[in-house]
């Protein structure tokens, strides 16, 4: 099983190793909740698990950045996230304001603390 992408063609490879292994989790979600309703304890717990996983994704994006973001120092990334959040709270929970301040902070910080 050491087939490579060049042998299979890009679209077939996309379906076999991109679409299917990704979609299986969505499909399992559909199958597993047949017959359960919104207020059942299991769904409440599952929603808490999903929320915690989402927070985990967020932490990973900021702390263990890959690609271009990795070139910006970790202190700048965490600091900009914090500044954005404070701005969000001051601006009565406006996500737009928070994102704008956070983005500005990360760009200025990356200039100021360029490695």
């Amino acid at each position, binding site marked *: 099983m050491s087939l490579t992408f060049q042998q299979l063609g890009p679209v077939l490879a996309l379906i076999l190793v991109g679409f299917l292994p990704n979609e299986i989790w969505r499909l399992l979600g559909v199958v597993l*909740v047949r017959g*359960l309703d919104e207020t059942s304890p299991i769904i409440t717990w599952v929603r808490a698990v999903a929320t915690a996983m989402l927070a985990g994704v967020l932490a990973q994006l900021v702390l263990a950045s890959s690609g271009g973001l990795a070139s*910006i120092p970790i202190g700048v990334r965490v600091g900009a996230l914090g500044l954005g959040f404070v701005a969000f709270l001051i601006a009565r929970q406006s996500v737009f304001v928070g994102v704008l301040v956070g983005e500005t902070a990360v760009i200025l910080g990356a200039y100021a603390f360029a490695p």
Partner: protein
Amino acid sequence: MIADSEHGSQHMPEQEVQATSPQPSGLPPRFSAFIFIDGFKAALRSVFFYVLVGNYVGMGALAHGFGFSFGWMALSTLLVWAAPAQVILISTLGTATLVEVAVAVTLSSVRFLPMVAALLPMLRRAGTRQRELLLPMHFTAISVWVEGIRLLPSRPREQRIAFYNGLGAGLMSAALIGGAFGFYLATKLPPLLAASLLFFTPLALLMSASRNSRTLLDRLAFGLGLVLGPVIAAQKVGLDLMWTGLIAGSIAYAVHWVREARR
């Protein structure tokens, strides 16, 4: 729910419903299209629309850099619709074996199971067919899920599937637009700007999730996930996102359960 299934049995037999209207949820098709457009408009008003444009500018540039065609990249957005999995595909397909790529992709997508599982009971009503849920299932990604969980409760149940589909289609178009920009700007984008575009996602996630967390359960699950995520990742046990979700989510649920029991 007992009340729901009783209600379901009072419905017309399935064939009769089909004969009068192709929408088993009982909505006239035109009305359902209006709700879909409402969902699409909600996507345009969402901060995630702009976040996805930004994020997928980065994705388009990446795909261009690895020599993929524009059509292939757009198809991967339509079919996979998960940024981390797409990054893995684009950056490893040329070098790793297909089995390795498939394993990496599937490990990055575990989060969809609890997301879809938590979402579907909000969409379903008596008489909803499984296949009507396939499109909402496929549209489910972090951005669509976060906005869906926020906006769906204010919608009547019979409108929710069409609304969620509109929301998903709207946010997916943002990714397609961003991807197209990125693909053509790839060689002209300054590296710092390209990097800062990727910062849109964590910023928007943090704030949208905080705004959505109204109950103690949501807040605890989110806060604990944020703290425990990096701790668990540092243990290098593998599958750290799954463990983060299970441990932090279960602790939050236990606290919620104890408080409810005391009332």
